[in-house]
C-alpha cells in the first residue's frame, strides 16, 4: 500500500474528525451543563445545512456571510427550542427522561417539516473554494483545508471563552455544581438557554462546512447525531477536550478503516471502536470515573 495513500487517509480523517469534534462539542456542552441528551442536535445541523444551501447556492450570498447567517439563525432557534420545549422540564424530577422524549419529538418534528416543505431531494452545495492542494503527491481539496481551518479557529475560540471569560467561568461552574453556582450569583436558567443556543450554533457551523461535501437533505442530521454520541462517549461525557480528541480519533479510525474495507463498513468500524474503548474505560478517554 503506498505510503501517500495512508497519509492522505490520515489527513482526511483528521479533517472529517475535526467536524465530528465541532458537532460533538455542542452535545458535550449540553450534557456537561444541563445533564441531558439532545436528540434534536442533528436537526439543528440539518437546518444549518439548508440555510447555507439557500443563502449560498440559491441566493448567491457569499459563503462566509451565508455561514454566519446559518449559525446566528440556528443559535436563535436553539434558544427558542430551549425556552419553549426544554426550560420548564428541567425543574421537574424526571427531567433526564422527559428531555430525551422532548428532544426526540423536536427532532421528528423538524425532520418531517423539512421533508414536507423542501421534499426528500438531495441538494448539492458548490465548494466555497475551488482547487486542490498537491503536497508530495497527497491531494487535498481547498474546501477540506478550509474545514480544518474553521474548526481549529472555532474550537480555539470556544476554549478561550470557556477558560478565560466571565461567561465561561459561569458555564463551567454550572456544569460542575449547579447549586453552588446559583449561590454565587449564576442564573443557571439563562446559562442553560445560552448553552443550548451555542450548541445549536456549533451544529449549524459544522453543517455549513460539510454541506458542500455531503449535500443537503432532510435526513442529513441522523448520521452525525449517532457519530456525535459515539464521540461524546468515547471522549468522556461532558469533557470538552474529550469531544475534540474523540472526534479526531474517530475520523482517523474511520478513514483508515476504509483502506482495508469498503466505505459501507465505516459505521461498523466506528461502533466497534467505541465498544472496545468503553470496554476498557467505561467513563471514556477523558471522562472522570464516577464514584458513588
Amino acid at each position: 500500500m503506498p505510503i501517500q495513500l495512508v497519509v492522505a487517509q490520515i489527513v482526511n480523517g483528521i479533517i472529517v474528525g475535526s467536524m465530528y469534534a465541532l458537532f460533538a462539542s455542542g452535545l458535550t456542552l449540553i450534557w456537561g451543563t444541563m445533564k441531558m441528551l439532545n436528540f434534536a442536535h442533528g436537526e439543528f445541523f440539518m437546518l444549518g445545512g439548508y440555510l447555507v444551501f439557500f443563502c449560498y447556492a440559491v441566493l448567491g450570498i457569499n459563503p462566509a456571510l451565508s455561514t454566519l447567517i446559518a449559525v446566528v439563525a440556528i443559535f436563535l432557534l436553539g434558544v427558542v427550542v430551549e425556552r419553549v420545549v426544554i426550560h420548564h422540564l428541567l425543574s421537574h424530577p424526571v427531567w433526564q427522561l422527559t428531555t430525551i422524549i422532548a428532544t426526540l419529538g423536536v427532532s421528528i418534528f423538524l425532520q418531517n417539516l423539512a421533508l414536507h416543505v423542501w421534499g426528500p431531494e438531495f441538494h448539492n452545495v458548490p465548494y466555497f473554494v475551488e482547487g486542490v492542494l498537491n503536497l508530495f503527491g497527497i491531494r487535498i481539496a481547498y474546501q477540506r483545508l478550509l474545514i480544518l481551518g474553521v474548526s481549529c479557529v472555532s474550537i480555539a475560540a470556544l476554549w478561550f471563552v470557556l477558560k478565560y471569560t466571565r461567561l465561561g467561568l459561569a458555564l463551567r461552574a454550572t456544569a460542575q455544581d449547579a447549586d453552588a453556582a446559583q449561590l454565587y450569583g449564576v442564573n443557571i436558567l439563562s446559562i442553560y438557554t445560552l448553552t443550548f443556543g451555542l450548541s445549536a450554533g456549533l451544529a449549524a457551523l459544522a453543517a455549513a462546512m460539510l454541506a458542500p461535501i455531503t449535500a443537503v437533505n432532510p435526513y442529513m442530521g441522523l448520521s452525525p447525531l449517532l457519530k456525535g454520541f459515539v464521540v461524546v462517549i468515547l471522549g468522556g461525557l461532558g469533557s470538552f477536550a474529550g469531544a475534540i480528541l474523540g472526534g479526531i480519533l474517530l475520523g482517523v479510525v474511520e478513514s483508515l478503516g476504509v483502506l482495508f474495507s469498503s466505505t459501507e463498513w465505516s459505521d461498523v468500524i466506528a461502533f466497534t471502536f467505541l465498544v472496545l474503548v468503553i470496554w476498557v474505560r467505561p467513563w471514556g478517554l477523558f471522562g472522570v470515573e464516577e464514584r458513588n
Partner: protein
Amino acid sequence: MPLLSVERISSYYGDARALVDISLEIEEQEIVAVIGPNGAGKTTMLRTISGLIRPRSGAILFRGTAIERMPAHHLIRLGIAHVPEGRRLFPQMTIRENLLMGAYGAPSWRERGTLIEEVCDLFPRLKERIGQLAGTLSGGERQMLATARALMARPLLLMLDEPSLGLAPKVVETILAIIQDINARGVAVLLVEQNAQLALKVAARAYLLETGVMVKSGRTADFLTDESVRRSYLGV
C-alpha cells in the same frame, strides 16, 4: 432592625414537612449557632434562606427586604454568602477560579484582583496552591477555600453549614479561629453545626433545632448550663 429575620417558615421535601414554623434572628456582626442532631432540618433551613428551597409559608427578611421569593442567584448581591454542606467547591476549577466565582454575582466583582490578595493573606495555604485544581485539596484546605470563596463576595452575612465535618480537631481549631477573625471584621455568621460544643464556643446566641422544630433559643451561656442540652448534645 435585625440583619436577618426568619419568620415562621415551613419547608417541604415533596410532601414531607422538613421545617415547621421556624423563626430565627441574627443581628449585624453577631455569631449565631444553630445546633441539633443529624436530620433535624438545619441544612434545609439554610437552603431555604438561600432560595434553593421555596418555603410554603412564612417570611424571610434581610435588612428589611423580603427575600423568600427571590431567585437564589440574587441573594449574593444583597450580601448573603452560603458555604454549603460538603463545601461544594468547583472541583475541576483552580483555586483562583473558585475564588473568582465567589465574586461572580456580587458587586465586589470589580475589585476581584485585590480581593484575591486579601483572602490569600487570610489563608496563606491557598496562596501557595492558587493554580491547583480544587479537587486535589485536603479536607481542611477545602473548607478554607469554601470559606474564602464566600468572603470574595464581601458578605454581610456568612452562613456556614457544618464547617467542622470530617476535619481533624487541629484543623477545626484553625477554622474556628478564622470564623472569629472574619466576625471581628464585621461579618455576621450563622453557624450550623452538629458539633454543639464547638458551635457554642464561638457563638453569642444559639438555637436548637429538632425534627424541623425550633425547640430552644437563647444566649450560649444558657445552653451550656441547660441540663437537657448538656446531656443530649454536649455529652456531659
